[in-house]
């Protein structure tokens, strides 16, 4: 029993089954990320005055990551074009390049996460706040690279301040909290949105790695079907790139 139009397009609709399925899936994904972006807007607009931070994320790193994904979109397209032109070696090259770019993207994302999770806000018993990255910890003291501020609101602008060595005795600490999702609404939505996006990147990489590696055996027997697979995996990848194009300005630049 063969299901029709798995490889060749249906004449009156002009598409093959998997392509329809992928577009429908992407429509659903638009609603998923649309819901997240709407939540971001509502949370930010409704946030109490003077609680929304700016400049907490590194624009250079975000820019590099944007460029990496943009380049990977091009290499994915070229990989598909190579399949269409029946040039298997070029497919391997460009698909491999996509995988490398995506890996670097996730590496940078991981570094950014690490940077946030080792960033501490320490409230002292005298009311001052020390804020910075944890450098070293001894039995009695913490060493941060950062600064002292008088109140919480000063922390909301993350740019253009000194990074000095700050040492704090543990006995003077009232409360210590790192920049994890629970820190505030911005960190929460940042980790959630980029985390969900990162899972999509990872999912796309798993599919690409399969097509690059064991799945490429299909090239010898059914090159048309294999080309279709590259095409719909590429559709998904372009969507993942597109989400980042929105995430970058929304989280990094505003």
């Amino acid at each position, binding site marked *: *029993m*063969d*299901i*029709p*139009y798995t490889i060749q397009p*249906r004449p009156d*609709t002009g*598409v*093959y*089954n*998997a392509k*329809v*399925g992928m577009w*429908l*899936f992407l*429509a*659903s*994904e638009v*609603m*998923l990320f*649309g*819901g*997240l972006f*709407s*939540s971001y807007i*509502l*949370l930010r607009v*409704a*946030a*109490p005055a003077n*609680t929304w931070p700016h400049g907490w994320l590194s624009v250079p790193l975000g820019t590099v990551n944007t460029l990496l994904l943009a380049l990977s979109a091009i290499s994915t397209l070229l990989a598909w074009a190579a399949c269409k032109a029946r040039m298997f070696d070029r497919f391997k090259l460009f698909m491999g390049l996509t995988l490398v770019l995506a890996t670097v993207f996730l590496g940078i994302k991981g570094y950014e996460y690490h940077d946030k999770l080792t960033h501490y806000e320490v409230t002292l018993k005298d009311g001052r706040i020390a804020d910075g990255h944890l450098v070293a910890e001894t039995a009695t003291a913490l060493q941060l690279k950062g600064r002292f501020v008088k109140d919480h609101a000063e922390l909301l602008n993350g740019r253009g301040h000194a990074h000095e060595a700050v040492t704090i005795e543990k006995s003077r600490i009232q409360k210590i909290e790192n920049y*994890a*999702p*629970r*820190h*505030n*609404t911005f960190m*929460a*939505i940042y*980790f*959630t949105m980029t985390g*969900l996006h990162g899972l999509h990147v990872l999912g796309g990489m798993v599919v690409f790695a399969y097509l690059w590696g064991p799945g490429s055996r299909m090239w010898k027997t059914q090159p048309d079907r294999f080309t279709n697979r590259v095409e719909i995996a590429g559709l998904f990848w372009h969507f993942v790139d597109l989400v980042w194009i929105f995430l970058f300005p929304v989280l990094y630049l505003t």
Partner: protein
Amino acid sequence: MESAAHTLDRAHVHEDHHEGLGFLRSYVFSTDHKVIGLQYGFTALCFLLLGFTLMLMMRWQMAHPGEAIPLAGPLLAAVLGDVAAKGVMSPDLYNSFGAMHGTIMVFLAIVPLAVGAYGNYLVPLQIGANDMAFPKLNMMSYQFYLAGGIVMFVSFFIPGGAAQSGWTSYAPLATVVPTSGQTFWLIGMVFLITSSLLGSVNIITTIIQLRAPGLTWMRLPFFVWAQFTASFLLLLAFPPLEVAGILQLMDKVAHTSFFLPTGLAVGGNLANISGGGSPLLWQHLFWFLAHPEVYVLILPALGIVAEIIAVNTRKPLWGYRSMVYSALAIGFISFLVWAHHMYLTGMGTRIATFFQTTTMIISIPSVIILSSLLISLWGGSIRFNTPMLFALAFLPMFGIGGLTGLPLGMSLSDIHLHDTYYVIAHFHYVVAPGTIFALFAGIYFWFPKITGRRMSEYWGRVHFWGSLIFMNVVFMPMFAQGLAGMLRRMSDGGANYSQAKLEGVTGGLSPAIMSLNHYILWGAVGLGLAQIPFIINFFHSIRWGEKVESDNPWASTTLEWQTPTPPPHGNFLRPPQAYRGPYEYSVPGYDKDYVPQNQPPG
């Protein structure tokens, strides 16, 4: 051609069906849309029974607050421990059962039955396809559904019990209840959403790509249109709930404050949270799903009823095209009405006016469909068999449900009625004697195609009249209770607000209103008893029912009846070709009163 199509083609069944696959591949991990449809059907019917049983125990508690539940009480006490000590339902347990009754009925029973079972089994048959477009995804869709169901079911037995904050899981209440039930609920929902995503992608792709040659869009049976629209709603409305689920899961597990406002106090103490979140955001995301979900519940039911009415009136559906366009209009507009569930949140009058307007507008296509079905009866030679009885009862019952919804769509009257038993009565009339009657009708109607045997007409009628009467005994009094101001979700059935407890206070619930709880309890018991003939009839008829005499026992035109009985793997003996519309009954000039879609012209 014609005689070949209508003699019984049972001989092909056994050689084609299994194709040498083992038991696991044939029945557990099957990729055949019919087996998956039946898996969905059986699982969903079990959950339907479970959801009903929960409600039966809750109705006892409401009529007799603080008294041990007969029969089930000792069992509850043994299994669940302190929350049901001595067989008495505690308020916490009542909350759990209430939340899970709604969740199970909507997400694990009705939608899987209406879309998972009926959509899977019938859509490929009605469009002349040999299977769904993505059989493996179809199998995974059922597996995800089963996993979600198991997670939900297991949550009853964890410490603290299942989720307690209603099927709506409003934040911040759902987040701050200090048990893990809500976390299980959220994880279960993520599974169910994944399942419905895979299912809806499959159904839509199948309808777009695998229609038989000649089966143009306006030749599709209305049932297929209904499934098409409902699948689009599942595809596009569920992701925002998934977002809501993810954010609430973050609140529960990672201690973020997406839905927790600044200054939230829990148990008299300031909660240790960052705050800054928005409880209203949850309601927006939730109802953005949950209103389209209402139409996911009702559209397949309308589709089933339309098929049965066309066959049993022996005439074409009246206004087929306007029904199709109405279904599509319902689909679009259902995304624009969600905030009519939120009039009491203090929204501005302009926003309320917008949502009142869209709500009134969406009732128009619903009324068009219902009117078309009603007018279809006019002048028909109606056959009153069991499926037709259920389909006919659907029309007024759904009508009551729909019309009583209008006062809830107006912000002025909604302010009085919100959160009362009036709301419960309204949406149960839509879903219980509405959608569930349509689903019953479908079971009686398609049973001969699936098994090759008929269900007993006599016991079908007993089931029908018992269900119809007791459904109304259960739900009609709730309108009166709601109008009198009785609130929903009270574990004592309103006793604390009765005149007996509030002596000298005007406005307490009168003894007459309180006594309705007893009628409802015995109505619910009667409703349960009325299902026994159905269950026995169902299983008895699988083995011992009267054998059907042809592949097309109802003399129907649509393609699913032009297959062997039951349809083998691959469905059709030869790929069908459609030549005509779906409801060519009593066409002048033919010797029979129906012309199948695959009968060539001439």
